[in-house]
């Protein structure tokens, strides 16, 4: 299993947000500012790599019937560790992300990867898969949060981009904006994928 393939699978082909369509709650909630989106992305990537590695390590020892609760315990442990370290070393980000840090436990992406990949593959591949999915997730968060912050407060990473005469559209910082923007982004991604797929079909036809 080529590691680079595993990595890019997580970023593009099976991007958790744009393709697999899981892990949505956090995406909508924390993307009001680019730095929050980035922080959340990094936190989730950390938990993903950690839990994928541990699940891969114990995959031969854990009986099938209790694998889901066992995975949940592993994930919850990593989330709590991330929580503690954020609270100790990055309190402002901890306060900004609020309840969505402990909610990383129920972020479907992590359990899904543990169940469908890490429990069936070796250590290195699982770690890279965790990294790839995490990067894909973070990219999606960054795109959405940069858009929302720019349209909603005129800034990116707290740097004011437009002059004071720009009236930001606050709706983008509020729930409706999040839903609508994400819907449009997925729609754009879908349309790119559809064009790609029909191009591939045409190429196969011509090759015959």
């Amino acid at each position, binding site marked *: 299993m080529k590691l680079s393939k595993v990595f890019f699978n997580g970023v593009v082909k099976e991007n958790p947000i744009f393709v697999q369509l899981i892990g949505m709650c956090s995406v909508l909630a924390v993307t*009001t*500012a680019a730095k929050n989106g980035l922080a959340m992305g990094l936190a989730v990537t950390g938990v993903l790599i950690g839990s994928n590695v541990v699940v891969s390590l*114990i995959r031969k*020892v*854990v*009986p099938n*019937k*209790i694998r889901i*609760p*066992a995975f949940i*315990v*592993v994930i*919850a*442990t990593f989330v*709590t*560790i991330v929580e*503690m*370290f954020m*609270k*100790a*070393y990055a*309190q402002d980000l901890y*306060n900004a992300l*609020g309840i969505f840090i402990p909610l990383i436990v129920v972020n479907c992406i992590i359990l899904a990867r543990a169940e469908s990949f890490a429990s069936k593959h070796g250590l290195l591949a699982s770690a890279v898969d965790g990294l790839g999915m995490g990067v894909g997730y973070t990219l999606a968060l960054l795109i959405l949060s940069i858009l929302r912050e720019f349209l*909603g*407060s005129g800034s990116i990473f707290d740097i004011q981009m437009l002059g004071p005469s720009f009236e*930001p559209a*606050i709706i983008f*910082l*509020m729930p409706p904006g999040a839903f609508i923007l994400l819907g449009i982004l997925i729609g754009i991604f879908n349309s790119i994928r559809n064009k790609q797929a029909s191009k591939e079909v045409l190429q196969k036809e011509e090759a015959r």
Partner: protein
Amino acid sequence: MNETIKLALILFIITAVAASVLAISNSVTSERIAEADRLASERAKMEVLDIAEEFKQLDENRLKEIVGDNTNITEINEGYKGSDLVGYTFNIEVNGYGGPLTFMTGISKDGKITGIKVLVHEETPGLGANSTRPFFTDSFKGKPVDSEITAVREPKADNEVQALTSATVTTNAIVDGVNLIRQIYSEKLSN
């Protein structure tokens, strides 16, 4: 039956290992967390009462004496410059729009509000969350404690502060809290 016990045992072991890892992690970080909390609190007090250099928290009995039934005022600190008492800081919890909102107010001995700072909130970004921005909090600075504070679009008078656009609930919650603190200060602490 044997199988169930075996499964439960394995799950228990995994959980026990997890719990011990967390206990270690907790002991590594808890001091740092307490320190970070303390620093954040000191910084907040310095911001709202910048004429003070040191702060001394009032103990529970004294606090209860002063606030009486208004238990949403959760902390009062005396501010000292050297050995002179120069003012007070008050921590108060009110009901914001998205949830409970905690903020701090500083009042100087000569009867002026020296500043406010929102500590914890769940307000909407771009609306109620603007209560953390200087254009709002600065409008409270220097206001006298002897008259009721009101929030308006363009504050001019001595007792007017900046209202937050489209965030009436947040603005009112904070202004009501400040007025309560004003009252308590005038009645109990301004001798």
